[in-house]
């Protein structure tokens, strides 16, 4: 089979659809989906070659939100990059903060007090709830359930954002972690509010699942669609719920045991088929486990300082060295690779973006499926463009 290579940017500007003649298969259709498309989760673009409605080739095109995070990170101080990490994966600012703070703490050999570690776990799990809830809403939006599940998801999201706002002062861009602890302590009544939210979240999930999990349309659209094998997933560097939906038990909270995760009792849900439905189900089950972690953490959180007294905020210059550090973000392994030359700025500041690397397998998942399924598969991969392009 031969067809002309889709060269995305040299195509005639404005022409988003053109026919490619192929003597064996009739006319193949080359479609440019994105960067402005309602279901590409932002400004993602894919060049799709279609035989009828079937995808025969799919090449993602990136860079429409490349806002030079790494270059700016090399020209600003270590602490100055913290607010920029909020804007990487803008749904999950707390886990981005934690990943970066942990990397710098490893680079400088900085300890963190116990209460701060508990707060970090609580915030990370709240972020996971927020992300997975919104993902299910967006996935259903991509299936054509216009509005309703997303309305439920955003209702719960607002409750979690209220917690973040009362803690950090900002709804989305929290900028909360510091090297050696957290910026401010939880205000009075905050932990009680978090407990109330955690206790009520289970019943919300019951309601949500009653709508979705057994839904015939959802099952028809997702079961057996976009199957990912464990071998390909590991080789392609896929991480997070996608990897676990493919049946690979690799959760950094268990493997690396960073923070205080070894203290908590939780299970790692695994998928059996690796299809889109498994990816949805693994996230729902992960939310249930997150609630368990939250209940334990909110029960055990000790009083005490939230910043290490030896932590240095002004004039922070780590000794020359290098570190790669990673945590389990809601979308997968988010890592930071920092090289210090002893100056106030990192010499090299690199973000390992889970969303970008998870997209490696997009073409493999979509081949042979219809174009409508490609949208659903993309929705189940869970990308945020701020992180894909940085």
């Amino acid at each position, binding site marked *: 089979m031969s067809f002309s290579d889709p060269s995305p940017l040299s195509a005639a500007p404005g022409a988003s659809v053109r026919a490619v003649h192929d003597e064996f298969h009739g006319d193949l259709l080359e479609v440019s989906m994105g960067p402005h498309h309602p279901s590409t989760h932002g400004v993602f673009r894919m060049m799709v070659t279609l035989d009828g409605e079937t995808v025969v080739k799919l090449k993602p095109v990136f860079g429409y939100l490349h806002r030079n995070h*790494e270059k700016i990170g090399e020209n600003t101080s270590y602490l100055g990059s913290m607010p920029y990490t909020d804007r990487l994966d803008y749904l999950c600012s707390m886990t981005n903060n934690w990943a970066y703070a942990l990397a710098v703490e490893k680079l400088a050999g900085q300890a963190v007090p116990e209460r701060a570690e508990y707060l970090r776990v609580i915030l990370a799990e709240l972020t996971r709830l927020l992300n997975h809830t919104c993902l299910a809403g967006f996935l259903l939006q991509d299936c054509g359930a216009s509005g309703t599940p997303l309305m439920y998801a955003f209702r719960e999201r607002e409750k979690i954002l209220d917690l973040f706002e009362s803690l950090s002062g900002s709804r989305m861009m929290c900028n909360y972690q510091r090297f050696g602890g957290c910026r401010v302590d939880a205000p009075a009544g905050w932990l009680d509010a978090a407990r109330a939210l955690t206790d009520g979240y289970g019943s919300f999930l019951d309601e949500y699942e009653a709508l979705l999990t057994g839904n015939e349309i959802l099952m028809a659209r997702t079961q057996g669609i976009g199957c990912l094998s464990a071998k*390909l997933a*590991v080789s392609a560097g*896929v991480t997070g719920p996608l990897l676990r939906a493919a049946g690979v038990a690799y959760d950094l909270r268990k493997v690396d045991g960073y923070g205080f995760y070894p203290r908590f009792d939780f299970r790692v849900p695994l998928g059996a088929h690796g299809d889109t439905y498994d990816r949805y189900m693994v996230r729902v089950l992960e939310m249930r486990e997150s609630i368990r972690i939250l209940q334990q953490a909110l029960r055990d959180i000790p009083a005490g300082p939230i910043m290490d007294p030896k932590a240095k905020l002004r004039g922070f210059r*780590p000794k020359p060295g*290098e570190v*790669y550090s990673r945590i389990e973000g809601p979308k997968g392994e988010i890592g930071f690779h920092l090289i210090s030359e002893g100056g106030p700025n990192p*010499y090299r500041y690199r973000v390992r973006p889970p969303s970008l690397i998870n997209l*490696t397998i997009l073409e493999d998942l979509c081949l042979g499926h219809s174009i409508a399924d490609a949208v659903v598969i993309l929705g189940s991969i869970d990308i945020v463009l701020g992180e894909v392009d940085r």
Partner: protein
Amino acid sequence: METPDQIRDRLLSRFPGAAVSLISNPGPAAQHSLLLDAADARAIATFLRDDPGLQLDFCSNVTGVDWPDREIVETTRTSTPDPAGGPAKVVEQKTKRLQPGCLEVVYHLYSVALLHGPVVLRLRTGNRSDQVSLPSLTPVWRACEFQEREVFDLFGVVFEGHPDLRRILMWDGFKDHPMRKDYVEPDDYEWEPTPHGDVLAKAKRHYPTPAPAVVKEEPKP
């Protein structure tokens, strides 16, 4: 897991003649790395992936690093013993040496099967201008596909054997490699109310201080 020393020794016995050296990391993280020669990098990478003791099946992260040419000042002390038996004469000599720059690619490897890591590999190009080719490790780990494209785009390292080496973040006609340290970005700043450093210099260039207006005094009638 084996220490990087042991891995290096095992690699040297398995690949005699290959250049593998250990680069130590002075920081508290102590993630030491292995510097490989470009010629046998892919064979070594395949070995690391398939070796039953290591099984580094997961390439987590690929980073490009730019090291420009640097001038290094070395101080050498030579002491000449005094023939008369007095204290030795110490002469300090400072020599300047130009350390040639290179582009470096760093791979962080983990094992999903054995749950260990990281093993850090480094590859270096010959220089920063015309010898910028390195073997692609995408045939070994597919996870490198987009990340190597990114290093090609932002640093200009050409990966030989990459299935689809195109620019990934910038557009195709773009000529520069913006993450290099000597990249000059387009000058489209605006004046800022509290400028400092580079921004102030740019602002002054854009909006030069106007020459004091010369007001002619008209003779009073």
